[in-house]
């Protein structure tokens, strides 16, 4: 009883199509692949019931944030709304990062719901990886350049489920802005 990437995509698209206030061109295979990879706790590349449930709860929470900060009720986020939404989602980032995220996830400077979700999934993952590497909690990570290819590739395989052994992530993902 596991859900594949394709099945996840079908489910998500069916659900969002019911929410007329959301602008989206549908979840892409790439986004869904990222979600499954990120949630995949046992390396099966499919979501078990528990993994799916956690993902679902996350998406519902993000849906709430998306709606709350879509101030002009356009069904999508502009850069100002995106900034507010990210801060409220617990990510306090610097200007360069906001600019990058808009450049990366927006289409003509606006971000629709599926891109918004994809962005958040990846942000959480990258944040958790950093936390995992920052063993002594100093806020900096030292690494050997040789580890980089391995790290880069592992991005596509990491789960963003609560990793047992790393402990629960604190509620606020407050990152140090400059």
């Amino acid at each position, binding site marked *: 009883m596991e859900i594949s990437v394709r099945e996840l995509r079908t489910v998500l698209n069916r659900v969002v199509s019911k929410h007329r206030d959301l602008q989206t061109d549908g979840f892409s295979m790439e986004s869904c692949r990222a979600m499954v990879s990120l949630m995949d706790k046992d390396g099966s590349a499919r979501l078990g019931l528990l993994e799916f449930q956690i993902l679902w709860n996350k998406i519902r929470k993000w849906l709430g944030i998306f709606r709350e900060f879509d101030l002009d009720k356009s069904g999508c986020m502009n850069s100002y709304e995106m900034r507010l939404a990210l801060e409220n989602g617990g990510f306090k980032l610097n200007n360069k990062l906001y600019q990058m995220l808009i450049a*990366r996830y927006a289409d003509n400077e606006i971000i629709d719901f599926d891109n918004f979700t994809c962005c958040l999934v990846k942000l959480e993952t990258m944040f958790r*990886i950093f936390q*995992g590497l*920052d063993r002594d909690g100093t806020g900096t990570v030292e690494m050997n350049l040789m580890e980089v290819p391995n790290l880069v590739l592992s991005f596509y395989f990491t789960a963003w489920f609560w990793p047992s052994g790393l402990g629960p992530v604190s509620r606020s993902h407050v990152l140090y*802005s400059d």
Partner: protein
Amino acid sequence: MFYLRKVVGGIVDVVNNIDPEQFAPSNPPPPRRPTVYAEQHENDEEKQFRRVFQQLAGDDMEVSPTELMNILNRIISKHGDLKTDGFSIESCRSMVAVMDSDSTGKLGFHEFKQLWNNVKKWQGVYKQYDADRSGLIGADELPNAFKAAGFPLNDQLFNMIIRRYSDESGNMDFDNYIGCLVRLDAMCRAFQTLDKDKNGTIKVNVQEWLQLTMYS
């Protein structure tokens, strides 16, 4: 976290038998120069490339992910020996993001030129290492194809790549090959530029980390 635990815990000891000397990500793009200066000093080949770029980039003078996707797909349609289901918009968005050093969301001339030269180079490698002329890189052809592109990874990493980018038979098609290399190359380069004293290690805070990783 299945793979992450392995990475963080150091259980997967993947770097031991990789020779640092063999790693060859491409050089960073040259610094931007004023257009007028650049155009005066270009040779004929460069001038022609610039014309092609201008045609491609359109009025905003930058290549968007969609424009990139169109040109890439147009080109591969002419190469019957490269099997692919085409470059997706998602993949092109990622490639643009990774080459987009000034965060405009599109590729300027130098960013595009670097990407283009890399794609040309890797296309040559792909053809060279597609030993059985299937148009695809099989699991047995993959390690050499990546080594020749500048990435001598080990078996564990190749297995991860195959898992992520290849089909059920373990075959990688052209757009996945290019997509994988573009990201790998750009990220290695980005991390490398942080190594100011060239001692092979870098130190990053969380903001720098996100800046390095979020555009993939």
